[in-house]
């Protein structure tokens, strides 16, 4: 028994929360911590000497590990029991989609470096985008005019979001913060002067999103956590711990379906959270690499994910499992960004091989491949009224497709 306590085996339960990370720096909150920041593989088990003195804790740990193994098996069994059919089988009788003609209708040029993130305004024509060179630009996508530009004090602005009112934008990145800039009608006004720092993380900001109003912002970070903030006071309202590595993306559930959001991370997990309690209510771990993007299905009953494992997947929340994989042998580069068309029938995926693949969500087949970008597609969003979608790329441009 003492021997087992000091064995080198890291059981799946422990490895699930051990640090398997991409660029993980900074501290995890104490809640999620099993290993100290500086511990190597040799420090995950109790040395024989300590085990002899602490028989109680090692017995309890062994019992807990056993229980977690049992529960994991039970979870898999419960999920498997309900796996009576595949989504594409159910969709066999559905009419296949015809040929798609989607072209670049607008090209937005002006960023001096890689475009990392973009978001649509609710007015369906304005777009905010952020770039590696520290610039955040607000565009009128109809005319391609730049309406506002802000220079952030940091490079790699990895996240940006438009406020629901259209009167402000939020952004952040390597500065570990999320800042809100009110948009002024006066073009000459210096936007940076009115900047409000809202969120503070201990590592880079990977994604941000306003909730239903301009009053609250949800953020995800390389520090492994997500957090909900009050914009006015900058106060932390709720924090979300459970990812074992950098959190790369998040998406809020459509407002009709309540107060939840989904996040994806470098730990290959997608977690669904209750915004009020901070609890993780469902967790999915089928991807084989970092999850770069998550997006809710329009009904709120499912969500899609895009990953460095070159696949996109669909997870149904009521069946509590993955129900579709969108992949092809010829697609070997990671998917960086995904979004659904208005009805949920189409899934658009931006990939690191410079292309955009369009998938039939129900049948699981690819219906179109779009070329145009000259470097990785890093971000992709469908417009609020579904008439077009916009992609941003490391080639410094954004393209609007319809």
């Amino acid at each position, binding site marked *: 028994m003492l021997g087992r306590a000091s064995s080198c085996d890291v059981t799946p*339960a*422990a490895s*699930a*929360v051990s640090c398997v990370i991409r660029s993980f720096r900074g501290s995890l909150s*104490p*809640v*999620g*911590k*099993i290993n100290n920041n500086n511990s190597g593989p040799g*420090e995950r088990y*109790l040395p024989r000497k300590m085990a002899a003195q602490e028989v109680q804790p*090692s017995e*309890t*740990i062994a019992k*807990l*590990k056993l*229980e*977690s193994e049992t*529960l*994991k098996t*039970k*979870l898999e069994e419960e*999920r498997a029991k*309900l*796996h*009576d*059919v595949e*989504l594409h089988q*159910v*969709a066999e009788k*559905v009419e296949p*989609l015809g040929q798609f003609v*989607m072209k670049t209708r607008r090209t937005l040029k002006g960023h001096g470096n890689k475009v990392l993130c973009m978001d649509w305004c609710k007015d369906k024509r304005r777009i905010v985008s952020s770039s590696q060179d520290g610039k955040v630009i607000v565009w009128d*996508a*109809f005319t391609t005019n730049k309406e506002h530009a802000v220079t952030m004090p940091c490079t790699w602005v990895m996240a940006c979001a438009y406020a629901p009112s259209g009167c402000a934008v939020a952004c952040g990145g390597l500065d570990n913060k999320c800042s809100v800039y009110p948009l002024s009608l006066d073009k000459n006004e210096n936007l940076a002067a009115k900047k409000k720092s809202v969120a503070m993380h201990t590592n880079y900001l990977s994604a941000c999103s306003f909730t239903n109003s301009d009053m609250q912002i949800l953020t995800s970070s390389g520090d492994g956590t997500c957090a909900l903030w009050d914009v006015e006071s900058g106060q932390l309202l709720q924090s979300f711990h459970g990812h074992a590595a950098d959190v790369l993306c998040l998406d809020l559930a459509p407002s009709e379906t309540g107060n939840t959001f989904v996040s994806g991370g470098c730990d290959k997990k997608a977690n669904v959270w209750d915004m009020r309690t901070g609890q993780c*209510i469902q967790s999915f771990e089928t991807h084989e690499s970092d999850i770069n993007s998550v997006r809710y*299905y*329009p*009904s709120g*009953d*499912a969500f899609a994910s895009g990953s460095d494992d070159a696949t996109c997947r669909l997870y*149904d929340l*009521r*069946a*509590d*499992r993955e*129900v579709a994989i969108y992949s092809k042998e010829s697609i070997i580069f990671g998917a960086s960004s995904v979004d659904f*068309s*208005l*009805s*949920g*029938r*189409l899934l658009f995926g931006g990939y690191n091989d410079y292309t955009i693949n369009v998938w039939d969500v*129900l049948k699981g087949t690819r219906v179109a491949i779009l070329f145009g970008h000259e470097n990785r597609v890093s971000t992709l969003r469908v417009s609020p009224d*579904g*008439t*077009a*979608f916009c992609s941003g790329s490391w080639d410094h441009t954004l393209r*609007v497709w*319809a």
Partner: protein
Amino acid sequence: MSGSSNIVAMKKIVQQLRFEANINRVKVSQAAAELQQFCMQNALQDPLLTGVSSSTNPFRTQKLCSFV
């Protein structure tokens, strides 16, 4: 020291797993049918799916208005 913090962390994992194991689930056939139904119901209102014509899609308009 590391022993007790390990226990706390493990207990949280077990608690979380217990919670997740107990949620209500539906069969994939039912969930899939509902996803499909949503698609079908909203298909006509999906401009990217149905391919809205140039005259109604603001992004497809080729001509730009100019004031003379």
